[in-house]
């Protein structure tokens, strides 16, 4: 990060602030259709660090061949994805307003649309890592130098297909593949411990042959420092990111009622005030 390190952190923080603002706007416009609020907020710093700092992208061309690829395997967290694509410039502010409206490009789970920077359709849990492996193999076969970043949920790690992918990636020596596990400790109807205890995820991913790191998923400096050093690691990389579901707003932090919920106008205004104080 060099001499502009502080500026860079500030830049990502601002990006994250804008992302949260967009999330609020989309969630309130969805109204009674509800929005997956908590799981988008838990990965806001991660997604912001990827799009504002780590990933190689061309702001003018979402289809740039050399771009790093991003896969939101926990597709229900699409609010943060659309918000980041808006900040990058691929999705307009007007288009964001169509979130979950009839005939929209921005449904409640991402639908492939490469003009908008959405590389894959996701939503059914447990599928994004396998896609990422295929894309990471492609990068090597085509002798390109792009990386692949996949975000999965901790609850998503209940799915067996995640572990099929976890077993395969080290076999193919995919040092260009990153999996970020959003460890917010909740899934749809309760805590991981109540529903399906995922145990020690760091040990599990390590034992499958991944380079595994555990960090604070809201600490932008830690995220940047990890990414800065990570290209020297010759294995696929799993980041266990400890996060807070609903992060950023007093009413939603660690409150699983906000997994998928209606953001009323009055709560929206309260949330906006909290954001302005930051």
């Amino acid at each position, binding site marked *: 990060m060099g001499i502009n390190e502080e500026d860079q952190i500030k830049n990502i923080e601002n990006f994250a602030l804008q992302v949260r603002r967009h999330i609020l706007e989309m969630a309130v416009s969805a109204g009674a259709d509800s929005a997956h609020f908590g799981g988008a907020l838990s990965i806001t710093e991660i997604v912001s660090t990827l799009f504002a700092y780590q990933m190689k992208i061309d702001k003018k061309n979402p289809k740039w061949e050399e771009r790093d690829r991003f896969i939101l395997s926990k597709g229900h967290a699409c609010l943060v994805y659309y918000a980041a694509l808006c900040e990058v410039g691929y999705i307009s502010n007007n288009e964001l307003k169509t979130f979950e409206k009839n005939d929209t490009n921005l449904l409640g789970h991402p*639908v*492939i649309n490469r003009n908008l920077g959405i*590389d*894959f*359709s996701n*939503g*059914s849990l*447990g*599928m*994004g*890592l*396998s*896609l*990422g*492996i*295929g*894309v*990471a*193999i*492609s*990068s090597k*076969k*085509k002798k390109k130098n792009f990386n692949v970043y996949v975000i999965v949920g901790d609850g998503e790690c209940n799915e*067996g*297909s995640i572990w*099929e*992918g976890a*077993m*395969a990636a080290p*076999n*193919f020596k995919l040092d260009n593949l990153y999996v970020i596990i959003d460890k917010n400790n909740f899934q749809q109807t309760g805590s991981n411990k109540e529903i399906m205890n995922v145990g020690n995820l760091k040990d599990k991913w390590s034992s499958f042959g991944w380079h595994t790191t555990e960090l604070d998923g809201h600490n932008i400096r830690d995220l940047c420092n990890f990414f800065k050093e990570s290209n020297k690691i010759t294995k696929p990389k799993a980041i266990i990111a400890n996060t807070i579901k609903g992060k950023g707003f007093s009413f939603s932090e660690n409150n699983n009622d906000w997994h998928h919920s209606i953001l009323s106008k009055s709560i929206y205004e309260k949330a906006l005030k909290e954001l302005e104080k930051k």
Partner: protein
Amino acid sequence: MIIKDRDIKMWSTIGARATVGLAALELAKQIDNLMVLTCDVSTSAGLDRFKKTFPEKYLDLGIAEQNMIGVAAGLASENFNVITTTFAPFQTMRCCEQIKVNLGYMRQKICMVGIASGLALGTLGYTHCCIEDVGILRSIPGITIISPADSLETVKALEAAVNSDNPSYLRLTGSSNNPIVYSKDYEFKIGKSITLREGKDITIFSSGAMVYQSLEAAKILESKKISSKVINMHTIKPIDKLAIEEACETRLIVSIEEHNVIGGLGSAISEHKSTLKKSPKQLFLGIKDTYSKGGNYKFLKEKHRLTPEKIVEDIVLNIE
């Protein structure tokens, strides 16, 4: 692809599933971005030579079909031309939702090859037979389904599917010593059925290994003064509607399939037939929605009345 007469005989001897590996090998010589993915069944799918010749175009995902389809979709999204192959139940049902999302919803172009579909592996039980694949995949929008009549048609269908822009499923039936329906090269077009025998009384539609059985049945029917038109409906989706409309000029339509009678070729035909103003009765021959006791291929064809003699008995009973 250039087809030599001696290849046709050899492919028939080794059967459709070993043939598909050899066909992939030939295609890989012409298509730079071809990739073949499999799940620990390289020998069964005739891929041993492919693996040695083109290791860079070959991936074995181990016994993990869901991951195979996802990886295939990742490769396809980066413009690789991908063939996946494993035994039919695992190629279609174990990873069914991955097929829906990646090939159907996202339209990633992958050619899936289900080997040993139907009843060929009957001694191994119904875990390894596959009488459901067509019904299940037919309900996913946008997937072409082809069931080749013999080993040569397997080669033709693979070439057509790989060169097509659509995601597809090739359903391979029969065993080694696969009877020859086509002894010479011919024109194969996805979605266009082939009339193998003309007839005026009844029309028999079949696909896969049942095509040869239908031709044999037609010979017996002729001796009973029943003139049968036999159509190789190699593409089950999209179905050849014109051929169905023309068949309505005969007195009986017969569908013969090595598949459950629910959801397969017969269902596809009847779905179009029932929209027509005037159409004859349809006789559905196939597996009657049951898992029978197992046994070898010959035994199971007898049991499910899919031999020429049993087919003739059922047709004679139903012709008006």
